[in-house]
């Protein structure tokens, strides 16, 4: 410390210094101290008032010197202060205490006050020394400190609670993470290095925590994904959008691949800074394989269906063409067969004519009787018999050829599609067969029959053949009954007609074959060519209908023919 007033001088007060200069160094120290120090006489009148006091209380030294120091004390505290000053007079030194004092402007200022007695060298009481320190800043600081402390304590409590909660929550999360086996849950640093590792991750990816923590997570990606920077792109996307979901192939420690569903979540602190990523992966290989398998099977199935459809279409076209070829073949063969038939007929007739000529010749009187007799025998016997057989065979052949022509025509003639009054058609068929019906002593019953959609002539051919068949194969042992009717409508958009007889019936083996050409269930009965039902089948087929038979040997047969209804009748029924 220096003894000059320079370095310790208080800040300039900004008002004129009206004090008398002093040469006493101690007085100069007091004067320049930053603590307000005053002195009173034994009656507590101010005798000394330094610059800091002027500043603290607002009174100049000139104003205060000679006035009672108690004026600085708020009225309600003056007695108390007087008592204090009495104790000082008695010799007590009062250590600093905090008290309020009044400023010149009436405001209260908190100060730390200390007081001590001032004595002359022989112990005479000269007055009181009083020092004031401005407590305003300090009080404010203390208040602030109290407040801070309380705040701190509160925060500390909060923090303790939060920490506990966090600890509990973290423990819970840890337990969850460790118990989740099917998910790899890991944390990544913002740069993609692995920060934490879960048992599920170990189970899924094959790495132990100590093998993988700190390594870059691109480790889990296939080389091709790494090559195109996919792991980094995923992190960038997750950082940009907060969350990213991806599915793709990932690689285990052992190099095997699995199809993973991956969710990467960006984790940010309160200030929004990216602190890392949470990554949850799931092994969906089984699902992926199942899906791939389903897709593959579907594609294969599609392919097979297409192939099969194409094959069937080709076969169909082939069959249709072959059918047409067959019918054409049958047609031309039948025609070719007709020419020799004309010869057979014609020349058998010529033979007859020649025989007659020969017989006339034999009748000539010049022929010896024995020759005439033997010649006549030959002519009437072998020749007549042979010609008879030839002609019977020719007639039969002719019928077969005609039937074949009809069969080939059944497939080839152009149909005129119309609504066919089946009841009327059947009536006509029955009328045409009336002679046979009468000869056979049969009974024919016709029930109600709905119209059908088809070619009238062809439908007539069907019923003519079925009725003809029924009449042909009646059982001579009992009166024949033929029923023509219709099954109850089943809403199929068509009608099922039937022709039922109580005739000979058929064994099951025959039922399979009777709709084929030249198949006859009863070869000895009737003179059919074995083509009637083949024609029926062909006609019904061309009508997109169905024909079938139910039969029992000895009981009779029922032929069913299903045909479509006319469009007008079909429409409203279809809408039901």
């Amino acid at each position, binding site marked *: 410390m220096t003894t000059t007033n320079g370095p310790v001088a208080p800040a300039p007060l900004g008002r004129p210094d009206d004090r008398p200069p002093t040469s006493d160094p101690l007085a100069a120290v007091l004067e320049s101290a930053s603590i307000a120090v005053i002195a009173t006489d034994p009656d507590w009148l101010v005798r000394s008032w330094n610059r800091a006091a002027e500043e603290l209380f607002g009174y100049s030294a000139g104003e205060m010197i000679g006035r009672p120091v108690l004026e600085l004390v708020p009225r309600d505290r003056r007695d108390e202060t007087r008592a204090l000053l009495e104790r000082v007079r008695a010799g007590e030194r009062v250590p600093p205490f905090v008290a309020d004092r009044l400023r010149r402007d009436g405001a209260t200022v908190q100060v730390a006050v200390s007081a001590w007695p001032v004595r002359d060298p022989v112990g005479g009481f000269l007055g009181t020394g009083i020092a004031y320190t401005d407590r305003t800043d300090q009080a404010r600081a203390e208040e602030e400190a109290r407040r801070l402390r309380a705040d701190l304590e509160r925060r500390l409590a909060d923090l303790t609670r939060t920490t506990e909660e966090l600890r509990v929550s973290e423990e819970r999360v840890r337990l969850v993470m460790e118990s989740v086996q099917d998910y790899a849950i890991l944390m990544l640093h913002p740069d993609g290095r692995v920060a934490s590792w879960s048992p599920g991750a170990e189970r899924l990816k094959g790495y132990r925590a100590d093998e993988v923590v700190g390594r870059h997570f691109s480790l889990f990606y296939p080389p091709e994904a790494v090559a195109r920077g996919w792991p980094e792109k995923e992190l960038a996307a997750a950082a940009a959008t907060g969350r990213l979901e991806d599915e793709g192939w990932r690689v285990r420690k052992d190099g095997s691949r699995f199809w993973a569903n991956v969710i990467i979540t960006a984790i940010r602190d309160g200030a929004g800074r990216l602190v890392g990523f949470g990554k949850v992966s799931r092994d969906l290989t089984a699902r992926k394989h199942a899906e791939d398998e389903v897709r593959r099977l579907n594609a294969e199935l599609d392919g097979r269906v297409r192939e099969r459809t194409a094959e069937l279409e080709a076969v169909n076209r082939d069959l249709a063409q072959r059918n047409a070829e067959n019918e054409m073949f049958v*047609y031309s063969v039948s*025609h*070719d067969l*007709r*020419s*020799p*038939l*004309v*010869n057979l*007929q*014609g*020349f*058998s*007739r*010529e033979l007859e004519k020649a025989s007659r000529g020969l017989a006339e010749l034999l009748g000539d009187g010049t022929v010896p009787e024995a020759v005439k007799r033997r010649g006549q025998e030959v002519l009437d016997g072998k020749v007549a018999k042979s010609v008879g057989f030839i002609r019977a065979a020719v007639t039969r052949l*002719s019928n077969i*050829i005609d039937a074949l022509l009809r069969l080939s025509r059944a497939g080839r003639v152009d149909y005129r599609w119309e609504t066919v009054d089946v009841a009327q058609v059947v009536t006509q068929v029955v009328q045409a067969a009336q002679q046979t019906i009468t000869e056979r002593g049969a009974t024919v019953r016709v029930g109600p029959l709905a119209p059908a959609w088809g070619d009238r002539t062809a439908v007539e051919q069907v019923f003519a053949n079925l009725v003809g068949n029924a009449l042909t194969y009646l059982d001579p042992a009992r009166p024949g009954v033929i029923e023509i009717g219709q099954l109850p409508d089943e809403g199929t958009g068509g009608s099922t007609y039937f022709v039922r007889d109580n005739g000979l019936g058929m064994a099951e083996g025959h039922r399979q074959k009777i709709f084929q050409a030249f198949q006859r269930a009863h070869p000895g009965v009737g003179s059919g060519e074995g083509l009637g039902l083949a024609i029926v089948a062909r006609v019904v087929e061309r009508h997109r209908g169905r024909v079938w038979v139910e039969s029992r040997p000895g009981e009779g047969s029922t032929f069913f023919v299903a045909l479509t209804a006319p469009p007008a009748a079909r429409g409203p029924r279809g809408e039901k």
Partner: protein
Amino acid sequence: MTDRELTILLAEDDEGHAYLVQENLRDAGLANQVFHARDGQEALDFIHCQGAHTGRVPNGPLLLLLDINMPRVDGVEVLRRLKADPKTDEIPVIVLTTTDDPREVKRCYELGCSSYVTKPVDYDKFVEAIRRLGLFLSIVKVPSEDERK
């Protein structure tokens, strides 16, 4: 100009048919000359006086009885060629065949045949058909072959 007799050219590959047709035409009282060509080509050769018939001199009216199914050149082709050639398109052609396919009948009429007669398989009907044909041929007027030159 004398009314020369009608020559009948029978194009028929079946010897039996040819025989029966000729027999029955004769039985019907038709006395005209009938020439039998064994296929379509021979019929054409006869008409054009070529091939085996190079030396033939057309003489009077000619009528063709034509079968359809024949080797080498079939009846339809013969008909087509005759009707396509102005020199022969007036020769009356009667198709006489076993085929009764309506499409074949239609085709022959479209090509210009005068008549289409089906040979019935039933011999009585055959005889009757040929007899009527013979009656028809005995009264029919046919332009003369050689007059067209």
